[in-house]
Structure formats: structure tokens, C-alpha cells
């Protein structure tokens, strides 16, 4: 079997006794685009920073392209492009000076690609870094990360702070990179619509723990939702609670909305016994699925005004 691009083994990290990453294991095959999702403070950024060697893990290990992050030298940095949530660059440098510096540091630096991407992302080369907006800094950091011809890209909420046009351009650049170079991408995002179309796999983390990892199709198939109207009498609550995999029921007028996990066929069959007149499946976006999962984990906001 091909070596995974990123292999995380029982990684642990705590800040002042507060656990940020809790025995997390995750393997990402080469050429895959994995979306990392989780609520604020789940440990996403800590995980990515630990992978980049910016933070040291307390226990456990992780391997990028077969090399341990504990003793990864400069050669691994040559192959990993990283865009942090707040890109750090020398504020007094001009953008073109940043690129000139990077060109000398990275052996695989692709000057043509860098120029092309600067055009594409409309990067003002002669401006000083400190005068750039957050969005422009993110674009600049991405150009840097892509121009080193990376085999692995690690992006921390890259689309936050980008306008819709730039966001689209950014996703396109990422897709092209994965499609052409077979680059493995690990990126965290709160924009689940983006993830839904660009990622092939998803990892959900909460409170430093990996809740689940699977393909997007699997995740979306794991939860289903339907609107149901019953013939004459509404079934008793007891009976409804016996529906297989039921997570949530809501009722508005005569219409019940059921959210359930697991086998959709079995659910339908059990439901058919309750004499429904209308069963209508409801499309669930990744966002809906995520919110349902988080609710199951006890993370939700219920407005009481």
C-alpha cells in the first residue's frame, strides 16, 4: 500500500493542563483533499500547527510523507506548503521581496508559477506586507505555498476573510494543484458548502477528539431527514421513539420532521407500519449533517428570547 501523506498517531497536546488534542489518530492518503471541521476551539489550528512543527506534541507522533514531525528537518519543509489562519510575514518587506527570499530558500521554487498566480490573485507586488489586508495576506501566503511545488498543502481556514470572487479563485487554485500535481491537501474550514464540493474526505473533531472521518458521500448518507404526514390519528409518542436511528422529531401542524441516522431503508419500513400518507425526503446539506452531529454531541445553541 502507498504510504499515507499524513499519518497522525495518538497525538496529544495540552496548554497549561487544558487538553487541546486528545489521543488523535488520523491517516490521509496521498492525493486526497481532506476537510477538517469542528466548532471553535475544537483544536483544529493546534493540530495543524503541531503538524507543521510550530508546536511540540506532549505525546504521540505524526508523519508527513513518512517523516516524523518530531525530527523533521528542513527537507520536509521544502515539500509542505502551509497557510496559517493569520499569515505571518515580514511586515516591512515588499511582497516581491518576500517572493525573492522564498525563491532562495526553496529548492523547488517555480518562478513562472509564482508570476502566474500573482496575476491570477491580483497581488500588488510592490506594496509592503504590513499595508496588506487580511484577505490579501492570505492570497500572498497561498501563492508562496503553491510556488514551492508542494506535495502536501496544509491550510488553516484559508477562505475566511476572502471575498466571494477571491474565494472561488482560491478553491480553483487548490483543486488545480490537487488534480495536476497529485498534491495532498489538509484544510480546515467553517464554510461547509465549500468543503462539500472540494473535499473528498471529512474529519470532524470536537474537544480535541476525532469524532469521525469518512468520505463526504458516506457522511451524507449516514443521516437522513424526512417530512411525514400521518393518515388519521397521529401515532403515539412512544411508538415514534421506536423508529430505528431516530435523532430528532419536530412537529408543525400535521407535518412531522424526522431526522435519523443509519439505514434509511429500515427506517422507511418501520415508518410504513405507522400508516403515513405522505413521506417526503428532505435534502440534507453537509452543514445540516454537521449541526445534527454536533447536537448529538451536546453542542448546540437554543435561542431563548
Amino acid at each position: 500500500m502507498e504510504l499515507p501523506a499524513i499519518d497522525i498517531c495518538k497525538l496529544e497536546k495540552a496548554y497549561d493542563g487544558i487538553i487541546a488534542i486528545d489521543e488523535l489518530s488520523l491517516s490521509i492518503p496521498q492525493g486526497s483533499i481532506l476537510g477538517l471541521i469542528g466548532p471553535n476551539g475544537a483544536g483544529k489550528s493546534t493540530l495543524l500547527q503541531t503538524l507543521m512543527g510550530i508546536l511540540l506534541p506532549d505525546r504521540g507522533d505524526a508523519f508527513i510523507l513518512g517523516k516524523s514531525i518530531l525530527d523533521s528537518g528542513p527537507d520536509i519543509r521544502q515539500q509542505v506548503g502551509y497557510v496559517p489562519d493569520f499569515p505571518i510575514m515580514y511586515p516591512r518587506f515588499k511582497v516581491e521581496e518576500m517572493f525573492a527570499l522564498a525563491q532562495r530558500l526553496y529548492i523547488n521554487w517555480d518562478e513562472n508559477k509564482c508570476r502566474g498566480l500573482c496575476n491570477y490573485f491580483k497581488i500588488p507586488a510592490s506594496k509592503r506586507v504590513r499595508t496588506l489586508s487580511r484577505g490579501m495576506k492570505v492570497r500572498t501566503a497561498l501563492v508562496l505555498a503553491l510556488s514551492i511545488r508542494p506535495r502536501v498543502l496544509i491550510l488553516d481556514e484559508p477562505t475566511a476573510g476572502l471575498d466571494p470572487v477571491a474565494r472561488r479563485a482560491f478553491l480553483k487554485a487548490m483543486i488545480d494543484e490537487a488534480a495536476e500535481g497529485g498534491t495532498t491537501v489538509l484544510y480546515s474550514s467553517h464554510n461547509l458548502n465549500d468543503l462539500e464540493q472540494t473535499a473528498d474526505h471529512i474529519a470532524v473533531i470536537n474537544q480535541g477528539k476525532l469524532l469521525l472521518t469518512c468520505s463526504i458521500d458516506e457522511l451524507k448518507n449516514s443521516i437522513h431527514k424526512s417530512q411525514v404526514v400521518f393518515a388519521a390519528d397521529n401515532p403515539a409518542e412512544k411508538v415514534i421513539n421506536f423508529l430505528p436511528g431516530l435523532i430528532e422529531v419536530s412537529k408543525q401542524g400535521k407535518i412531522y420532521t424526522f431526522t435519523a441516522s443509519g439505514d434509511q431503508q429500515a427506517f422507511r419500513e418501520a415508518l410504513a407500519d405507522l400508516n403515513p400518507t405522505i413521506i417526503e425526503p428532505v435534502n440534507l446539506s453537509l452543514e445540516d449533517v454537521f449541526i445534527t452531529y454536533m447536537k448529538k454531541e451536546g453542542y448546540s445553541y437554543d435561542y431563548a428570547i
Partner: protein
Amino acid sequence: MHLNIDPRSSTPVYQQIVDAVKNAVARGLYNPGDKIPTVREMASELTINPNTIAKAYQKLEQEGVIVTMRSRGTFIAERKTAPESKEVKTLLKPSLDRLRVEAFHLGIEPEELKILLLETLEEWEKERRDI
């Protein structure tokens, strides 16, 4: 090739691509021998994960809708002329059964359904001729 893909639908994205390509071919927008975009081009154009596109192409190839010729690209395949009875059974029969059930509940009599079906097929033929 423009395909309408809705990532938020509960139909998996790869299946939507399969359906869209099959639809475009059936309507005569693409003919046997026409070249279609490569996986990379399609991924870039639609901003959709390349592995998802590859999965869709694999399925289309299995179903005989497209053929990939090494180093030359991917093309729309020649149309099948002799349908395999097994495939008719697994792919077409369930849809026909569903149609029958829906028609029954709409109060459509079998004779009316036949006429509707014929009309639909004629419309389809006309559309193909007009392209």
C-alpha cells in the same frame, strides 16, 4: 461542458455528474466520438474535487457511456444497440415500476399512461432532431 451540479443535494455529487452526462448524451447535446473534458479540466471548471470527477468517469465508463483512450482522452462511446436483459431489469424496470405507482395515485389509467409515454418519447425524438 456545462453541468448543473448542486453540492447541497442529497444525491452524491459523483452521481449528479453521471446523470448530467447521460442526460446530455440522450438529448443529443453530445454525440458518439465527441471529446469530453479530462478529469482535471472538469474538476477545475466546476471547482469540484478531482477524485469525485474520477469516480463519476469510472462509473460512466462501466456503464458504457464514455470510453477513455490512452493518451488521447475521453470520448462519448458508441451507443449500445443490443441492450443486455440483465441491465434492463436492474436499471430500467425499477423506474418503470415507480412510474406505474405514481400514475395510479394520480388517477391515471393505463391507457392514458401509454399515451403520455408515447408523447414524451416523441418530444424527445423531436428535440434530438432539432439539435
